Structure formats: C-alpha cells, structure tokens
C-alpha cells in the first residue's frame, strides 16, 4: 500500500509539473507536432492544471513580461511575426458590450472531449477548457504566479509559513444556490486523499498537508491539518514550508459536498453530476451537453464577481484543420490555443483579432541516460548509455538551427530555447544564458575532441571505441510540421557526422510514444518531447531524482542539491531563489540531459466582435467579462 501511495504521489507530482495548462495547450496537441508532447501523455496533460486553467478566470495583475525574451524581433522577413505584434488583453468599453450576446467558442481537437467535468477528476486539457467556463479555483494568482487576494477566497499566512487561513467570499455560491463553504474545500482534500480516489491529483502538494498520509492510509478519520473554522473559513497546515506552496501548492478547487457526500469516492468520477449535469460556481451554468461534441451554457446570474457579460455561450469541438476557416466564416467566435503554424496564414483576415503570450512550455530533445528503478522509486543513470558523454549531447544541440525552425515552420511563434526554465517565468528565466545556439563547427570540434571520429570513412562518426554509432530517435506524429522537423533534425545531425535514425523508421502516435519513453524502451536513445511547466518553477517533478517523469533519467548530486536549495527556507527570499535557479539553469546547459529546442507562443484567436478577454496569467481580465459587441459574428 505504502509503495503504491508513494508511486501515485510521485506520479501525480510529476504530472502536475509537467503539465499542462489546460487551457492553453490543447490545441497543440492536435496540431503541432511537438506540442503534442505536451499534452501528452495524458498523465501529463492533465494534472495540475489547476493552476493553469484557473487562470482564465482568476488572474489579475497585469501582464506582459513575455516579450522581453522574444528573440524573434530581429528577423525581418515579412512572414515572420513575433509576440511583440500581439496584445495580451483585448478590452472594450462596457457600453459597447451587448447585454444579451452569445458566442461560440471552439475546442480545437481532432477527437471528442472526454467529459470528466470536475476539477477534482478531469483528465484532459479539453475538459479543462470547458471547466474554465463554469467553474473556477477559489484562489487566483498574479503574473508572478503567486496566489493573490483577488480570487473567491483570500488568505493569510502564519509567520512560520506553515499555516494558511482562507476566507471564502460571502456571495460565492454553487450553481444550485447552495453556498460554497469551507467544508466543500475540506471535502475536496478528503476525496483526493481517499485511497479509493480515481483521479490523478494525489501528489506531493497534497501530501504536504499535515495528516493527509494518515488519512490516506486509513489511520485517521479526518485530515488533521485541515480545520473548518466556520462556514466560510478554512485553515490548512502544511508539513514543510516551501516557496512552492503559494505558487500552486494549495488545492483550491472545492467539491460540492451536498451533492457528492453520499457517493462512494470511486463512483464520483463516473457519476452524472460529473458527466452530464456538472456543477461549479463559475460565470456560466451548463445547460446541455452533447457528449464529446459540444456544450451549451447560460449566464450565472448569481456569479460572485458580477453579472457575466454573455447571455449564452456554446463550446464545440472543431478540428485543427478547419478551425481557421470556421473563424473566418464566423462559425466560431473564439479559439483558445490557436494552431501556431496557421497564425500567419490567418492573420490577414480582417474580421479576426489575435492575442498572444509566451507559453509556459518548451519543446526539447531528451537523451536517455538510464532507467527508472521502480523498486527504489528513483532514477538510475547508466554510465554506458550511448548518450552518456555530455560533449556528444552538447554537440547535438549545437548542430540544430532552432531559430530557423521557429521562423520557418512557425513563422516566428516558436523561437530558440536556451534554458530549462522558459521565459514565461521572467523572474527565474535567465536570458543571459545563451544555451547551445547553432554552431555546427563547434559541434564538430566537440565531437572530435571527445573521440567521436569517423574511423571507417563512411561519412559517419564512430564512438570513441571505434564501434559504429547509430543513434535512435523517437518522435511523435501530429500536425503538418512534425515530420519535416524530425527529418530536419536528422539531417542536421548527419551534417556533423552523426548517424541518427528514426525509431522503427517513422513517427509514433502520441500515446504510444509517451508509453515507450516512460518505460525506457531500450531502443530509444534520444526523443523529442514537449511539456508545459507548472506555474511553480520548482523543477523537481521534471528533473528530480525520484521523479518518474524525469524521462532522461538524469541524476547527479549537484542537481539534487540545487533543486533542494530552491525549495529551502532561504528560498522564500526571491533573490536567493533566483540565484539558485540561475545556477541550476547553467548547470543543466552544461550537462544537457535534455536540450530545449524551442520556446513557444500561445495564441488565442477571435472574431472582431469578441472583447474583454486576455491570454496568459495575471492579466486582471476574468472569464466572466468576455463579451460581444455585435449580434452576429463579423464576416468579410
């Protein structure tokens, strides 16, 4: 039992980090190759979006740090755009917004949405996108990803940073009129910590609450660290204080106790209150669901922030290939995570507006350096791994012209990735680190130096022992660009004398791909993946020794130490934490267990009549404000 718990926990933890912002990424998966990565493994995909999704509703602050990092600006080709060309917020005067407007939003996907419509149970980014319309987190966060006081609940922290006291607003009510109470919040924790819980949220952040493990193992009837003080006040005590708690370490999605209380925990996920008549306390109320296809919603008059601007909203699944056309013709008004490779082609349409922000994600090449030891619950490096030499890994990074990939395949909406903390986290991303850049000559020099030389004269380098070196590359299919990009990478490596072959000679379907990567398939030497990082920068769940999602299986003591320092007490001092993460970023560039290829932009596209919406975190624009200025979609 214990082992199981631990595993689950770790997995969940991981996931969360990786994870994806629900809202944003989904589109990706479908259409662009790399992206897929992120949405990826379902596990990844979902978990912790909590934070993410929430954003739409919750953020406040203001925006825009993103542009600072965009290297793309120097490029002048007309087809190339940069995030500088995009606003993050689209606002209009309240007077212009129709009072009884309605809009249709697209969920960009090739497949039906799953329909697990509860934050405590959902799995996929599409479900998260839907959820963000009718339910939200109690806490919201600003552009620095730290919880603020703008959400449906406010909080106070004790001096030792261990005890958090939350106050839920008086007028926050469920759609059926019942108030959202502290008990609902406690109930969410209890359900997640229940051994019968079927979702994937049981992670390290949950386990960090005092008494959760005892509750989980059945030794306690209630979670000792969670105390309901009165109807609207809750107190949570954590075991360890760390700076991650306020950047996503609190589970802030209550579960309606008056509805789910009597249900066995393992049946909640499949109940009709989750699938058919989902409940929330967000700005819109679900009226009707056509499973897998569309959802009809109407205004929640009782919404705590104010009256939602739209009378009605419809969400429907639209394929990535037709979404641009649907937008132009006015069939849909609003598309979150518009496919990046179609942006430039679509931008000329006069009836459309685009918003963009730096995505909390990157695409990367991972090098398999060992395997996951399930018994010990940790990653174990293999010194004889084909990719074990850091010089080889660095050279492979230097051989790739990522800037050109971004400009040519994504019209500048992806750009050269340098470190493992993406620029979406401006305080922690160190833009002075240059990464490996594009330098085939140096790549050649590095390889020569490390002893990888072409002994046989066949045009390919052999390994230092003189044995043939064939590197197997796994990559996933998806969208128009996956294939040419994989081909390009292999060509670029060939140019520095490395013989790289696609696993099985083709791209793999995305779930199959992640299964193989996760299971450390022996045939995989390197792989291309992508992930979305959580709002918290702590890299433990992606690169930690005990994280099963550390797919490259890279471990080192220095890495452990840096990660630990980033979560220590001293790390409450942001400057100290920045320093630690700077060091970590540099260290990871030097070691290159994974090589970040491109950072990404997240783009929302909408009809001209759609106003008062924003993309990204901490914009201060909330979902209930989105409205339309005309009765009908503007068409050309």
């Amino acid at each position, binding site marked *: 039992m214990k082992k199981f718990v631990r595993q689950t926990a770790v997995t969940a933890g991981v996931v969360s980090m990786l994870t994806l912002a629900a809202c944003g990424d989904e589109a990706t998966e479908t259409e662009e190759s790399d992206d897929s990565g992120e949405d990826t493994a379902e596990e990844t995909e979902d978990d912790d979006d909590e934070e993410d999704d929430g954003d739409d509703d919750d953020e406040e602050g203001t925006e825009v740090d993103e542009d600072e990092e965009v290297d793309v600006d120097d490029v002048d080709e007309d087809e190339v755009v940069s995030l500088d060309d995009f606003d993050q917020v689209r606002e209009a005067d309240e007077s212009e917004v129709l009072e009884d407007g309605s809009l249709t939003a697209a969920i960009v996907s090739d497949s039906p949405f799953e329909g697990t419509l509860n934050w405590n149970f959902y799995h996929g980014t599409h479900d998260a996108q839907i959820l963000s319309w009718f339910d939200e987190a109690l806490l919201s966060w600003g552009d620095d990803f730290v919880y603020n006081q703008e959400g449906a609940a406010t909080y106070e922290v004790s001096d030792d940073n261990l005890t958090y006291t939350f106050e839920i607003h008086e007028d926050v009510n469920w759609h059926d009129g019942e108030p959202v109470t502290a008990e609902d919040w406690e109930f969410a924790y209890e359900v997640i910590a229940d051994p019968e819980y079927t979702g994937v949220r049981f992670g390290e952040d949950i386990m960090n609450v005092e008494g959760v493990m005892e509750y989980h193992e059945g030794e306690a009837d209630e979670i000792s660290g969670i105390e309901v003080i009165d109807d609207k006040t809750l107190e949570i005590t954590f075991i360890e204080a760390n700076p991650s708690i306020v950047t996503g370490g609190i589970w802030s999605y209550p579960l309606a106790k008056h509805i789910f209380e009597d249900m066995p925990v393992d049946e909640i996920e499949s109940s009709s209150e989750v699938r058919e008549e989902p409940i929330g306390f967000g700005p819109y109320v679900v009226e009707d669901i056509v499973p897998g296809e569309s959802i009809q919603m109407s205004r929640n008059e009782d919404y705590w922030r104010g009256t939602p601007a739209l009378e009605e909203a419809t969400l429907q699944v639209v394929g990535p*290939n*037709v979404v*641009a*056309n649907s937008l132009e013709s006015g069939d849909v008004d609003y598309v979150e995570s518009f496919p990046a490779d*179609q942006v430039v*082609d*679509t931008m000329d349409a006069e009836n459309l507006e685009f918003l963009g922000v730096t995505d909390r994600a990157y695409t990367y090449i991972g090098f398999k350096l060992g395997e996951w030891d399930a018994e010990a619950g940790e990653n174990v490096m293999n010194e004889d791994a084909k990719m074990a030499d850091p010089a080889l890994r660095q050279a492979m990074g230097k051989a790739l*012209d990522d800037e*050109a*990939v971004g400009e*040519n*395949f994504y019209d500048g909406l992806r750009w050269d990735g340098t470190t493992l903390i993406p620029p979406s986290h401006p305080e922690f991303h160190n833009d002075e680190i240059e990464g490996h850049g594009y330098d085939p000559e140096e790549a050649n020099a590095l390889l020569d130096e490390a002893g990888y030389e072409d002994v046989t004269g066949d045009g390919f380098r052999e390994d230092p022992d003189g044995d043939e070196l064939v590197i197997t590359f796994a990559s996933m299919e998806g969208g*128009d*660009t996956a*294939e*040419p*990009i994989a*081909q*390009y990478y292999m*060509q670029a490596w060939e140019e520095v004398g490395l013989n790289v072959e696609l696993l*099985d*000679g*083709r*791209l793999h379907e995305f779930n199959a791909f992640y299964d193989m990567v996760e299971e450390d398939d022996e045939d995989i030497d390197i792989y291309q993946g992508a992930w979305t990082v959580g709002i918290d920068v702590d890299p433990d769940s992606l690169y930690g020794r005990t994280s099963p999602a550390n797919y490259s299986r890279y471990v080192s003591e220095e890495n452990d130490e840096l990660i630990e320092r980033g979560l220590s007490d001293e790390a409450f001092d942001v400057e100290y934490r920045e320093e630690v993460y700077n060091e970590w970023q540099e260290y990871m560039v030097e070691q290159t267990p994974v090589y970040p290829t491109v950072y990404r932009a997240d783009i929302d596209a909408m009809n001209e009549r759609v106003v008062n919406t924003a993309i990204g975190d901490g914009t201060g624009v909330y979902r209930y404000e989105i409205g339309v200025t005309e009765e009908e979609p503007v068409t050309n």
Partner: protein
Amino acid sequence: MEQSQQAETMADPQDMDAGKSPPGWRILLTEVLRDKVALFSLLLVVSIMMIVYLVPLFLSQEEIVRVDLFAIHEPPSSEFWLGTDYGGRDVFGQLIIGTRNSLTVGIGVTAVSGMIGIILGVVAGYFGNTVDNIIMRIVDFFFVLPTLLIVIVFIVIVPQYTVWSFIFIMSMFLWMGIARIIRSKALRERELDYIKASRTLGSSHLKIIFTQLMPNLSSIIIVTMTLNLAANIGIESGLSFLGFGFPEETPSLGTLISYATNPTTLEERWWIWVPASILILVLMLSINNVGQALRRAADAKQRRG
C-alpha cells in the same frame, strides 16, 4: 499494360499450340487499336510510366525528400518546377517518384493478388466439388473480413515497411474477387467438350489446366487485372492520403494530395496538390478506358465463341 504482358507470358506456351485461330490477346489488341480513346489512353499510360520509371534514374530520392528550412512553401519557379511543400521539398520530384511508387504498388498488388486469385480460382473451378467447396468457403471467409481495417492495423504494427511489404499486405486481402471470377469461368469451361475429350484421352490435370483451360481464360484474366490495376493504385493513394500508406520520406501521390486537408494549402498553394490530383485522375481514367475496351473485346469473343 505491363500487366497484360505478364499475363500474356503465362499464357504463352499454349499459344503455340493454338496458333491457328487468332490468339485471344490479338483480338484484345485489335479492339484497343480500333477504339481511339482507348488507344490514346494506352499511349498516355505508357508514356507516363516511361517518364516516372526513367526520370528517377537521374533524380536522387534523398535529395528530393531533404527538408530545406529556407524554401518552405515556395511557389513554382525555375528552380522548383512545381514549388515546394511545407518541408521545403521539391513537389515535382515528389510527384515523379510518388507516381512511380504508387504505380509500383498498384502493379505489384495486381500481380501478386492476381496470381493467388488465378491459381485458387482455376483450381476451384477446374476440380469443382469438394475442392471448389473448400476454396470458396475460404474465399467467403476472406470476403467477410473488414479488409481495409486489417490492412491499416497491419501497417501500424509492422515496424518498418517498404514498398514490398506494402504490396504483400495488400495482396493478402485483395485476391478474392479475381478468384471468384476465374472460378466461375473455369467451372463453365470444364463442362465443355474439349476438356472432357482431353481428359478421356488421358491428359494430366496440369497439362489440361495450362495448355487448354488457361488460354481460354486469358482474356478475362487480362480484363480483370487491368481494371484491378486502376483500383489498386487508388487503394494505395487512399491509404497514404489517410496517413496509413508510406511514410513521408517515401513520396506517394496520396501523401501529396493529403496536404490539401490543410485549408490554406487547399486555397492558396495549388501547386502542391493539383498536379498530383490531376495525375491520379488521368491515370485512373486512362487505365479504365483501356480496361473497358478490353472488356468489350472479351465480350465480343464470347459472343462469337
């Protein structure tokens, strides 16, 4: 056409015996020559084949499928006659090699499935009774299978597939139609006096089948195979279109056309998919025209016969 040539060779030994009456293939040929549309189609198919099989000798497939980051979606120019696709790859080169691949698969599948179908059909029809019963039940069984699905699953499972494994897999599920047609014709033939006479005179089964039965089936074999050829090219292109055909580094007509599923390509980058679509249309129509002419010839012979 090559197809018919092949079938011809098989039927050859017998032709020498039957030299007196005009051989079946000559009647077919005359019919085609007389039908101007069919003749034109035949010439067209032959010249397309010459081009796609000869030109690649001077083109390197590796060069053509090489991704060029700086030449993505180029319109047609003197450097790229038909522009480039989203990987900066020359569409003209892909068109030529793709047509060759699609044709090779079509011809290969027709030959292999034809072979299986003819053997089983002749055996079933000639021996009849229990043999016929057993073989036809097998055919029925294969007919019931959801062929396309199985082919797709095969393709997904087989780790590394080439033109040859592709031909093999498709042939496994496409021989039943031919077997049925041949068998019904053979059943009718075996009741005719010449076979019975031969049998009475003590000829061996093999001898009867190859020297007497097969020549009389040759026209129907040629017609069926020609029409099948068009269909098989279509199946390969269709699978590639759906993404279950060749990987992208092996160009195929279906792959080129599938680029048009992107609306922007469909509307603005005609050079990627229009030539391939036209080529498929032309190939299919031409082969079909020839096939129809052959069918008419075969019917006429029967009537006369």
